């Protein structure tokens, strides 16, 4: 009877272990297949055309300049000045941080060193008084050249502000240039070009 019991227990154990072994092996096969398939589809093919409407959320930023230049100033002389405003609006569903920086700065005759910039950031859209009535925080004063040197990418962008996801939040930037009254005649005929970029990245 003891022998009989032992054989019986052995049989019972194998009946318990076999399904477990099958389950573990099955899990291994399934997981490997899943990973292979997932990796293959993600990494073997080139990217599809981007869409900006995935269910996971969006970051959206619009400007009231429609991408156009704020400044196209010619015949600048010592003391020449001008002011323009742009309102940047975030409408993404994700909370994002917006920063201002410059790209593609080029100059001839070192004109960029003789153009002083003042940038003011204000909450909301343009006030009823127009661009000249914008009051806010001065976020930059210095030459165009120094702005181009210090604010070249998102990580070095100026005046970060947080736009909450789901809300429409705006900031207005007032940019004023003044040609240095003591600029050298060496800058005569000089040119300066720059792109202003407002970029939002989700947190």
């Amino acid at each position: 009877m003891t022998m009989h019991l032992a054989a019986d227990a052995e049989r019972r154990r194998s009946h318990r272990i076999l399904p477990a072994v099958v389950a573990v092996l099955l899990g291994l096969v399934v997981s490997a297949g899943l990973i292979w398939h997932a990796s293959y589809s993600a990494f073997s093919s080139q990217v599809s055309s981007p869409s900006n409407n995935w269910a996971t959320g969006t970051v959206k930023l619009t400007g009231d300049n429609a991408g156009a230049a704020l400044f196209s100033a010619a015949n600048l002389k010592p003391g020449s000045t001008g002011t323009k405003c742009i309102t940047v609006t975030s409408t993404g569903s994700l909370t994002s941080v917006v920063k201002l920086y410059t790209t593609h700065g080029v100059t001839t005759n070192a004109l960029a060193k003789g153009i002083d910039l003042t940038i003011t950031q204000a909450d909301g859209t343009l006030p009823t008084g127009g661009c000249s009535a914008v009051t806010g925080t001065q976020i930059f004063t210095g030459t165009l050249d120094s702005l181009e040197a210090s604010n070249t990418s998102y990580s070095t962008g100026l005046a970060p502000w947080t736009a909450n996801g789901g809300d429409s939040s705006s900031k207005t930037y007032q940019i004023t240039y003044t040609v240095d009254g003591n600029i050298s005649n060496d800058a005569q005929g000089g040119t300066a070009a720059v792109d202003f970029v407002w970029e939002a990245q989700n947190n």
Partner: protein
Amino acid sequence: MTSTHAVGRRRPTYSTMVSTAALSVLSALGWLVFWSVLPAALGWHPTVVMSGSMEPRLHIGDVIVSRPVPGVDLHPGQVLLAHDPDHPGRLRLHRLVQIDRAGDFILRGDANPTNDSSPVRPAAVLGVATLRVPGIGLPLVWVSQRRILPLAGLVAVLGALVVAAGRGGSRGGRSGTSAPGGQGPSPRRRRAARVGASAAAFAAVVGVGVPAQAASRFTAEVTSTPNSFAAATYFSCTSAATSAGTDAYLAYPFLDTSGSTVTDVSGNHHTGALHGSGTTRSGGAPCAADGGHALTFNGGGYVVSPKLTAPTTYSLETWFKTTTANGVLMGFGSSESIGVPVLSEYDRSLYLTSAGRLSFGTYTPGAALDGGYNVLTTPTVVTDGSWHHVVATYAGGRMALYLDGSLVAAMTTAGAESYTGYWHLAGNAISGWPGAPSSAYYIGSLGFTAVYGTALNAAAVAAHDAAGRP
């Protein structure tokens, strides 16, 4: 014991199938976690995707295992794990789209409309995404987002699976505990110990290789381009007049506050002499950078330059303002004094016609055409009380007349009269010339005035005009 015999011999029961299925699911999950973290032991980088900017290829909660870069040929199309250039201390998982001239990598989230603005330095690349374990990192995402509900749901599902997996064995276990003898730990306890040990080992593996968070970032941009700033060719009229290549003979900004001379700033010291009377000095003229001074004549005064041979290549430039259609703004004459018959020869004149237009006249002795008078006239009346800029050029027999920076008339002549004399401002002689006004005396103001030994071209004239304007 017959019942035990029966269990042992019976075909798999419903509960055994459920338990095996549940165990399979748990096992698959376990393997997924295992594959997510094991590569960390080889120095690979498992990371959890925390945002959807790589949709639809990578989803939030996927664990992406990246192979270290050395020995891997990087090329566009690969998904790279790199230190986030915009957020120190964080990781970014985006696709390589381009290698720029500096050798840096331009990345882009598949779901982003634009490339990432900041390039990634090769040294910042940690690896190439190689394995994707879908969804297995979701609990970490939920933890980071403090979302209790899905976490609770997950725990409940796992608990249910564990219970279901235990069912099939528990029947045997229960009969085991009722087995006689009771020597050694019961199967149920042994089973619990085994599960505990596996869980501990599992937790250790997970603990060692817990994936870092890879922020695949959404970005959006507003760009203002191309902003341009262009400096004037010349910041001042003096700067224009004395720039290389003009060969200035004289340049008068009328800065003198008293006396009977007019200072030349061309560097040639061709000082002008004030003749006659009734000249006054004032400000408010063009060429503000040069002081914006003007000399105003009431019909009795004029300015005379030193003596020279009448040039055959030259430009005359002046700013003027008048309401009176009379007089010569600038002209060349054979004597210091003006008027006929004192002046035997006179031409190279900028004069106001009786109709209030501005003419540039030169004389070709012996020419049959128009009696030798070569005259260009503006199409518009200029005696309107506003400041105007005029340039007249002569070179190789070709005359050109520019008003306010633009060419308004040009012609070719048969040649120039040769004689010596003086440049006169605000007076000369004019009788006999086409459209001649009643008097050679100019009544009005002159601003910055210059004479050059070259013929300014259209671009130079425009630049001189711009130099004088605000």
